[in-house]
């Protein structure tokens, strides 16, 4: 387990990455490499600060961290929604260039993404939602699209719900429909944004089990962004822990569980206070309530004047 500083992509390679094309990455075990990336939505706020991560092919890798630490931003950088301010994101040997829309769309056809709340098209049925990418990207006959959609829905246990409208399915079911849609085109990379958020224990178990089974069955590479330690450790092969825009630890779930690093331990055990403080930075409580000012005020005046004031 490493916990000091961000792991460099070159740690897992024999040669450093070339500026545009990375020939050794094609044969490398890493499908995605995030190389010394710095990113912020605006100039004054850095979300990710010089982070490096590498994601092995065929593995489930979890990216964990508290709310607002930059986990979802990482997925957006991989999907080419945003461009890093510094550093680069490399997908299967090609640096992602957000300005090249054609290259970006070619890349996106190779990945599937499960959004936090499903992002299903509410005007379509369950069946039509799963069929949507197939109809948009292929010229398959309708009979074949039907078979593929039913197979995907069967894989997530919702073949019987094919004709339901999105408003008629529960949150857990919607997440599974979104998963069926994400794997409709058999992507090489599946990204899951908070797949366990807001689910009841049964749905959470079902979702975790599905992610593991689908990954093993399809041989895809999976990235899970979550703060759910238990479920993530249960199904992932490797995990990164991000805090305040930097990687504070990474390793297998067993390695992370056994670590002595206080920040990693605080997150995994869910301790309220520690290296990540409970309180948002603020002035001392007494000062906040004006107690110091009131205590200081009488002493500033001469005692006789105070007495005189009371006598009156």
């Amino acid at each position, binding site marked *: 387990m490493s916990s000091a500083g961000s792991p460099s992509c070159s740690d897992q390679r024999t040669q450093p990455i070339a500026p545009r094309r990375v020939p050794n990455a094609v044969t490398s075990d890493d499908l995605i490499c995030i190389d010394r990336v710095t990113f912020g939505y605006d100039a004054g706020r850095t979300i990710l600060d010089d982070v490096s991560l590498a994601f092995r092919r065929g593995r489930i890798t979890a990216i964990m961290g508290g709310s607002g630490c930059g986990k979802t931003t990482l997925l957006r950088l991989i999907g080419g*929604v945003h461009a890093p301010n510094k550093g680069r994101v490399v997908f299967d040997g090609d640096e992602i260039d957000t300005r090249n829309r054609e290259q970006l769309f070619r890349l996106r056809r190779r990945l599937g993404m499960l959004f936090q*709340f499903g*992002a299903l098209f509410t005007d379509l049925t369950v069946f039509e939602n799963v069929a949507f*990418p197939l109809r*948009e*990207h292929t010229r398959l006959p309708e009979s074949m699209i039907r078979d593929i959609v039913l197979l995907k829905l069967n894989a997530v246990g919702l073949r019987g719900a094919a004709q339901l409208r999105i408003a008629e399915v529960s949150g857990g079911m919607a997440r599974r429909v979104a998963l069926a849609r994400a794997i409709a085109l058999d992507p090489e990379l599946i990204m899951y944004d908070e797949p366990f958020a807001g689910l009841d224990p049964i749905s959470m178990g079902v979702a975790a089990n599905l992610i593991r089974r689908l990954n093993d069955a399809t041989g895809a590479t999976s990235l899970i962004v979550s703060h759910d330690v238990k479920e993530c450790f249960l199904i992932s092969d490797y995990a990164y822990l991000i805090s305040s825009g930097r990687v504070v630890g990474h390793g297998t779930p067993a390695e992370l569980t056994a670590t002595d690093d206080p920040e990693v331990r605080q997150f995994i055990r869910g301790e309220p206070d520690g290296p990540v403080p409970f309180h948002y930075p603020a002035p001392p409580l007494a000062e906040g309530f004006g107690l110091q000012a009131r205590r200081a005020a009488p002493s500033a005046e001469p005692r006789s004047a105070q007495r005189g004031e009371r006598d009156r």
Partner: protein
Amino acid sequence: MNPHDLLAGLGRWALGFLFRLGHGAFFLVELLRNTPASLRRFYLVVAQIHAIGNYSVVIIAASGLAVGFVLALQGYYTLSRYGAAESLGLLVALSLVRELGPVVTALLFAGRAGTSLTAEIGLMKAGEQLAAMEMMAIDPKQRVLAPRLLGGIIAMPLLAAMFSAVGIFGGYVVGVLMIGIDPGQFWSQMQAGVDVWDDVGNGIFKSLVFGVACTVVALYQGYEAEATPEGVAKATTRTVVISSLAVLLLDFVLTAVMFSAPR
């Protein structure tokens, strides 16, 4: 207020306005660039014509009838003072075809279909549906926005034609059936005085321009809306205000160009 601050504030407002105008124009060009792809999948456009046009028929027809009634009453009152009551059909038809048909339809369109488009696109954005499309390598401008733009452009002249037709019928009901103007005079004056190209053609052109303006404003506001309930609510309000002002301004410009030239 300090005159320097006032000037600086005015400059900031002007720069912001020009930026938004330029951004909107770029958005329109982007949509137009995506329209050929939408035409290839015309079923998407047909669905939007149905959603935008068909669901607006009731309000357009009802408003057209009411405007026709009032035009006939007001027109008869004025024309009869000059002994020209038999020209009521011509007055009603010209007023509707040239002016009231395109303008009132566009204002109603902004309130009924425009707000619906803005809210729909804004909520799609808030629900990450547009982001999901992007991640599926599907351009939302091509798949979602361009068919709606074409639907709006096609639906607007059809609705304006319906408004004018129902309005003329309303004028007939009040003028002929209630007041008692000779029906032959009513229709023949209209037939002789309304020119297909100068009056009807210009009216259709106006409503096409209004169709582009109202639909682009609605789509732009939805697409650029802040992805929160308040953001969508504000965008919907802006759609009505900006579309209405744009229609009135464009109407003045188009009328000045079309009808001011000597025939």
